[in-house]
């Protein structure tokens, strides 16, 4: 009996169709809208005359400031996550006994799985001028008046570092864990100091995890909307809020679409630059011999 040979991707067909219909098609639609314009007060978009004018508008000084601000928060937030997260991941993977690691991973992940909006509201309570932190710092004499952080860029920065830190710690932990004790011991036996071992053995071997962590934090952070809405106020404006405002309040879908496209391009371009910088920075530490860790490294 001849077996019926279905094409290889048949089982994936429903997912293909669904993602094309509700991811690719709508994104293509807003790319199309971004070449149009807003006709009059009541229309949201029109495409009978095509132009790049909406892109010029999206990059005009009024809105460009917001893109620049978003980029600043994105880069600063990602760097802070790396600085704060790396020692934690190293501690979990190297210093903590194996038996206790599962508990620590769970502890890192619980906040990550709590409602994003609700934990951001938690920070709104903590940072409020009448809050315990403000009163405590005043009581200790560290600040003169009430804490004036809420609704500023600093508050947004604290919020995004908090919200995306677990996304940095987890891949770093997996990467450090994979390097393993024997290689570090070998490096020490061959006369390398602890810092040298870290820079020349641990970091180069953990590089895929470091890159994964940087991307996992940077990409969602750049598109952030909730943290900026809850903690930002007017000064902490991020590109995500600006896009949303064009669709929800200004009803200018053409401009909002152009802003969304600019946001995606900014993320892709800056992630590429980040990758180039990491590659250049790692050149001095390149070893002559490549070591592959496991099949999936």
């Amino acid at each position, binding site marked *: 009996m001849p077996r019926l040979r279905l094409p290889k991707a048949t089982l994936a067909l429903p*997912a293909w169709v669904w993602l094309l219909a509700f991811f690719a098609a709508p994104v293509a639609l807003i790319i199309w809208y971004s070449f149009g314009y807003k006709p009059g007060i009541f229309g949201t978009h029109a495409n009978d005359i095509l132009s790049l004018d909406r892109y010029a508008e999206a990059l005009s000084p009024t809105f460009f400031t917001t893109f620049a601000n978003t980029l600043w928060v994105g880069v600063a937030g990602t760097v802070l996550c790396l600085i704060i997260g790396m020692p934690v991941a190293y501690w979990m993977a190297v210093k903590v*006994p194996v038996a206790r690691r599962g508990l620590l991973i769970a502890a890192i992940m619980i906040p990550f799985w709590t409602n994003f909006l609700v934990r951001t509201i938690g920070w709104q309570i903590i940072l409020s001028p009448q809050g315990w932190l403000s009163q405590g710092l005043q009581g200790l004499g560290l600040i003169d008046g009430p804490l004036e952080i809420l609704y500023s860029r600093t508050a947004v920065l604290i919020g995004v570092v908090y919200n995306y830190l677990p996304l940095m710690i987890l891949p770093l932990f997996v990467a450090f864990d994979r390097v393993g004790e024997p290689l570090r011991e070998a490096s020490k036996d061959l006369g390398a100091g602890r810092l040298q071992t870290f820079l020349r053995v641990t970091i180069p071997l953990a590089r895929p995890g470091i890159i994964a962590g940087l991307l996992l934090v940077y990409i969602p952070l750049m598109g952030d909307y909730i943290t900026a809405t809850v903690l930002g106020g007017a000064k902490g404006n991020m590109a995500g809020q600006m896009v949303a405002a064009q669709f929800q309040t200004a009803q200018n879908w053409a401009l909002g679409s152009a802003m969304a496209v600019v946001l995606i391009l900014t993320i892709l371009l800056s992630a590429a630059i980040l990758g180039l910088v990491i590659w250049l920075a790692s050149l001095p530490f390149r070893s002559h011999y490549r070591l592959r860790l496991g099949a999936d490294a």
Partner: protein
Amino acid sequence: MSDTETRRIALERTAQDPSSPAVPAKARRSVSDRLFMIWGIAVLLFLFAPILVILVYSFNTGRLLIAFDGFGLDPFLTILNKPAIQNAVSVSIRSGVLSALFATAIGTLAGVAMARRPGKWVGWFLAVLVLVTVTPEIVDAVSLLPWVVFLGQDLGLTIFNDGIFRLIVGNSLFSIAVVSYIVRARLVGISESLEEASADLYAPPLRTFWRITLPLAMPAVLAGGLLSFTLSLDNTIISSFVSVSGTTPWPVYVLSAVRSGLRPEIASVSTLMLILTLLALVLVAWVLKRSGDSATQIARTMAGS
């Protein structure tokens, strides 16, 4: 000494820090070890701070969430008299369960296909999944809104005017990607020999899928399903764009309360929802652990990498 006891001692020995026998090294390391520990615990406190605040403030008897007045169960009782809140939570749970079932079904099929029918197409499919994962949610949100309005009103496909269905569409994108990753990762690590044996014994492909492939993938399927449930419960941005009045999910209710004024019962409901999410996650970890994954593998699975 009995055999089991020997094994127990061997296990204990491997569980200890392998470097511990070197006594001078231990003394030399203790300062930096302690610094690492202090830093780690400080970061854990930082991660838990706002959650503890929400837990405490969910017992706030005052009128506004942000001003703590007294300690009591009042906000929890207020929930009983607020049909809008009950409706929002119910919408969230219903759309979350349906999204999870749907995303798990088609994500599992895609994951199985990627692991068992590899080819050039897998590269393209993974590229689409990566695009779905890296596109900021706000972009998905603003692009889905005109799309569902177009399908529902201009093309007259009335199902797209249904609130729950719109939420399922919005929740599904990220969930499908996560389930596909997890199922693929599990099956890639398992040899195809059982499926080949089943085919050699004349089982038709569908039976092999039901009796062999699916049971092998089951821990990943369950983990993926529960993860998509929690992701859907959490989905705020896309939901706030596509939801229609009357079927407002819980996070969108909270987001509108951020603008109009937060009251303590928001924290109380969040506390209850936190407990629900934790139960789901404990279930995921338990399922993964029973199937023999280590803590590291569980972390990797849950981080979706």
